[in-house]
């Protein structure tokens, strides 16, 4: 309960204020925000997020493929209570981790999330994903410039893509 909120539609309504705020932060180039209509964030890897296979997504994202490793730990439920919200966590005991990605193999687009891990940040992340159906979830960790992965099947009977 850190901050209070007045809920629905905040995202849209906070746009103008957010733009000013971001210019101040210097996080994103102001020029990218000038078009009034949708524009992807400058460092958002659009191509990687459009791929339909694990290999293609990783190729787009990191330019290489991953090998399985027991030093990557993927924590995901065996049976998802609801495909709309599946808690998934990734940790690794590998050295010099610079990135973590989570892929849901049979979602319409395979890549769900990619995280950049600077030095000083632990190679661990927890997030909640949508899953359309029962499929393999893959965690990929970039360590010393190489990719390592772990995977697990998650059973989904109430899909996260239904209307």
């Amino acid at each position, binding site marked *: *309960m850190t*901050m*209070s*909120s*007045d*809920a*629905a539609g905040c995202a849209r309504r906070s746009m103008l204020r957010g733009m000013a705020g971001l210019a101040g932060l210097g996080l994103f180039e102001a020029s990218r925000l000038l078009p009034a209509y949708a524009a992807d964030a400058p460092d958002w890897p659009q191509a990687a997020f459009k791929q339909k296979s694990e290999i293609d997504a990783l190729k787009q994202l990191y330019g290489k493929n991953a090998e399985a490793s027991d030093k990557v730990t993927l924590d995901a*439920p*065996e*049976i*998802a*209570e*609801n495909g*709309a*919200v*599946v*808690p998934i*966590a990734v940790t690794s005991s590998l050295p010099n981790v610079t990135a973590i990605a989570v892929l849901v193999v049979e979602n319409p687009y395979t890549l769900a999330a990619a995280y950049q891990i600077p030095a000083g940040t632990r190679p661990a992340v*927890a997030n*909640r994903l949508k899953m359309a159906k029962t499929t393999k979830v893959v965690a990929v960790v970039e360590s010393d410039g190489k990719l390592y992965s772990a995977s697990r099947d998650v*059973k*989904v*009977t*109430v899909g996260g893509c239904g209307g």
Partner: protein
Amino acid sequence: MLRKVLIIGAIVLGGAQVACADDAVDPKAEFKAFRDYFVGRFPKVPFDDFVNGPYSMDEGLRKQWKDIEEFPPYEFAVDKGKEMFAKPFANGKTYADCFPNQGIGIRQNFPYFDAKSGQVITLELALNQCREANGEKPLDYVKDDMAALTAYMAFTSRGKRFDIKIPDDPRALAAYRKGEEYFYTRRGQLNFSCASCHVQSAGNHIRTEVLAPALGIMAAMPIYRSEWGAMGTTSRRFTTCNSQVRAVPLPPQDELYRDVEYFLTYMGNGLPVSGPGARP
């Protein structure tokens, strides 16, 4: 289709039995029997854990719930409810003026039987009565603002034990009885009663969902359901339960729904308030 209908009709009629139940209303005895039934059937579930519904019954679900509770999605609703609760009406009064103890930590006393109106007053109804008494429009009962207000009020009452009273008033007993009847009455084309799912099949799986036991089922209201991707009130839960068995729901806060809530919450007396809750 027609054949299916007739078969269902036959089942309905074939299932008819001569009523032999005792017609006396004895809430205290029924309360004890209800509680003993669930405690006896789920001996491994600690008593207070019944308020956590399906999560008291299944390890895999429990872990996902714990993960979600680390930063639960209903926090936005609690914060919004807190803001709404503090904001004065046009006439300068606030919600706090309508409730005992300024509305803080009182969820466990709802619903109650109001001797003056002769009706069961739920928290949702009381909130709208408060609004209308102060010249404000009533809120939609099922979600959004009403869910936010009740989420906040439940949040300030967490851990307090339900203490629903059935006064020695024939009207209160009648309300309890009507609620009980509604709970056990089969309805809808599926021919299910509330009890079919939440008593007889409590703890069983429907696809990946686990049916919550009726004992303590009101304690987590209102809830954020992943299925809804949003908050919902007790009204929302009742109406969707009805539709799921293919029965046309009653209007939210219909007298019968309030009576069911009265009956069910009374059955969970002694359990702690756990709302707002997160559910699949």
